[in-house]
């Protein structure tokens, strides 16, 4: 152990430098922390944007999903003949092929409290053949067998009044009974969601749109032990070219690409993240530069004592990394609180993920180390003779 003390690395110089001036540490952690918080919020919003757009696809209880080959995004009605879904059922390896009816433009919900009318997203399925993996939907699906009964999204935007205790509302002018709820939340296109039986769905849609022979999505489960990719191939062969056959991850990717291509969310939040990074870099440069100027005599002394530049560099970089962490940790904690509050207020799926955690940590270390690298030239050139 004694030998260890003699080794320069055993003196936690970077750490002592860091904590020697508490108010300065607080200041630098505050500055870097807020820049990190800015990045965390932007990264969180971007993730929430995509997550909310993908939430329904993720909630489908299937391995393979069928839809019209013309359907360019999930949130648009583009039905295909039910007969094609029947055909899929006969393909080897298919355990079940179920129908989802979906609509984004034709269901008008009357707020049971204030009577105002709003467009909502609507899903329909045969209560005996569930298509969602939401536990609350499946627990209450039997109640949907009664005509004109619906489940409502308790996390829908509040002006829809779906989170109320009301037991009755109106959809497209018809009285419907609210028999339960689920927690899905809005996305950037729909404010709220109503789930009902396929029969109720068809009867509430007037005109050709309500044709029960036209399915919006086929939800297919693969028989145990079968490879989804192989079943996908067989389905492609068995079905006409007007039907697109996606595995669930493929459809999620397809939707993600669509959202990335048409929405401004990517560039908007990327811009915010970049600004946070640059600001953080400037703050951390300021911190490191000031510290180096203040400690220059000490560094020069160390040099004069024979410590190599490599050691001094390591101290500077270690200290920059400590500064990064001192800003990142409180920012991360604060962002958890903000995610929670803003997520509740804006009904956005804002939550900390491994991805956001790692990206923000990487960016924070990056900005602190880059600025340290720029500021450190002073130490390298520190000449003991000049400093004193």
């Amino acid at each position, binding site marked *: 152990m004694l030998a260890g003390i003699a080794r320069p690395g055993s003196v936690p110089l970077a750490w002592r430098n860091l904590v020697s001036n508490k*108010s*300065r540490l607080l*200041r*630098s952690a*505050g*500055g870097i922390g*807020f*820049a990190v*918080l*800015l990045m965390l*919020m*932007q990264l969180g*919003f971007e993730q929430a944007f995509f997550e909310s757009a993908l939430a329904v696809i993720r909630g489908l209880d299937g391995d393979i999903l069928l839809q*019209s*080959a*013309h*359907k*360019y995004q999930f949130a*648009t009605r*583009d039905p295909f003949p039910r007969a094609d879904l029947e055909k899929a059922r006969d393909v080897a390896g298919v355990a079940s092929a179920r129908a989802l009816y979906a609509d984004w*433009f034709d269901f008008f919900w009357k707020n049971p409290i204030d009577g105002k*009318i*709003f*467009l909502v997203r609507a899903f329909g399925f045969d209560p005996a053949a569930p298509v969602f993996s939401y536990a609350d939907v499946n627990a209450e699906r039997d109640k949907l067998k009664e005509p004109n009964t619906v489940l409502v999204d308790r996390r829908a*935007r509040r*002006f829809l009044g779906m989170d109320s205790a009301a037991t009755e509302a109106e959809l497209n002018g018809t009285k419907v009974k609210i028999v339960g709820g689920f927690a899905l939340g809005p996305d*950037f296109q729909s*404010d709220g969601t109503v789930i009902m039986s396929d029969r109720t769905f068809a009867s509430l849609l007037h*005109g050709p749109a309500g044709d029960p022979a036209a399915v919006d999505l086929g939800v297919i489960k693969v028989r145990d032990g079968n490879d989804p990719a192989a079943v996908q191939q067989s389905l492609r062969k068995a079905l006409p070219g007007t039907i697109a056959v996606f595995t669930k991850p493929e459809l999620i990717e397809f939707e993600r690409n669509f959202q990335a*291509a*048409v929405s*401004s969310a990517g*560039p*908007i939040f990327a*811009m*915010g993240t970049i*600004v*946070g990074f*640059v*600001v953080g870099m*400037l*703050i951390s*440069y*300021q*911190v490191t*530069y*000031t510290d180096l100027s203040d400690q220059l005599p000490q560094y020069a002394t160390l040099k004069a004592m024979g410590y190599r530049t490599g050691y001094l560099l390591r101290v500077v970089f270690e200290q920059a990394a400590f500064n990064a962490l001192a800003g990142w940790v409180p920012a991360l904690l604060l962002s958890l609180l*903000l995610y929670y509050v*803003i997520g509740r*207020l*804006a*009904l*956005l799926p804002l939550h900390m993920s491994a991805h956001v955690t790692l990206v923000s940590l990487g960016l924070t270390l990056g900005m602190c180390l880059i600025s340290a690298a720029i500021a450190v030239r002073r130490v390298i050139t520190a000449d003991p003779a000049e400093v004193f």
Partner: protein
Amino acid sequence: MMAPFHFRPRVPLAWRILTYDKRRTGLALIGIFMAILLVFVELGFFYAVPRGGLLLYDNMRFDLLLASNEYEYQAQPGAFPLGQLGPVRSSPDVEEATPIYFGFAKWKSGEGGMWPDVFVIGFDPESHVFIPDSINRQTGVLGRADTVLVDTATRPMFGPLDTGRVVEIGDRKVTIGGQYVLGTGFMGLGVVVASAANFSRLYPQRGLDIVNLAAIQLKPGVDPDHAAEDLRKAVGPDLQVFTRKALEAHETAYWTTRTSVGIIFGSGLLISFVVGIMIVYQIVSTQVSRQLPQFATLKAIGYPDRSLAGTVSTMSLLIVIAGFVPALGAATGLYSVIRQETLLPVAMSEMRLLAVFAAAVAMALISALLSIGSLRRAAPADVF
């Protein structure tokens, strides 16, 4: 203790402190520049979204807008029977009332076999209800059967938008008669305008008896507020009458309170404001601690705390103002990049300029206030 904040400018001293270490001050300027730029950008988005929602109305000629009482916002306008326009047209205040039709349809000629949804606007081309010259110059084209004009901002997934191209909209073959410049806003990924006659061909079951909006032109000299008041009585409770001002307030309220837009950019705005404070504070307090012996000396020779506080505040203000000017220039440039990238109508306005300037001054003063704490501790006896 807010007393030291009794502000007396100390420009020469503050100026000398700042110019003494040019490198450090230069960095500070870049930092504050970025922070102010960020405030501009977040504020720009915050206003761009409702502006995007108002894009169509901004490009229409009307004094009053008539809508169903189910009108929520432009993309969910509700509908009412054409017959209800009767009492409006016979009002002595009204010069003209033009019905506007909205519809969605599948554009069956997209790239890669996709059928994107297109937003179709039907109107009487002779009414000249739209402002863009590119529409009004092509009224003749709009008069041709099964011909539409397509917005230049229509996304590439709709395929080429060349004049003469025949596309399938819904179940009908339609010729692209030309393009116009207005923007798609939040109407959809692609927008076309058509004459009322062509609109009814696209939606044969709907016909022209169900209207979404009516654009009302008043006779010259008629006060819109009074006319709106009278019309409301004439049309009854099934319809709403918006003045331009009321419509703008209504749409803005929709986008900022009903969607997540307000909270997303609002929180971004708040955080960039705090980041700005942190930067200025970082700079100023470093300067204060570096000049602490000098400040202590000033104190010792009789300068009151208040005067030193004035110097610190002046330093903050100088930095912020020097950062504001280039940030304004950069924001104007960045807005035009954002306009192209996101198709959102982000633009600089005097109000925004003043608001950001006020925010920047607030940043400076708050960070000065924070730095003054350490200044007060500058006891001459301790420093030496």
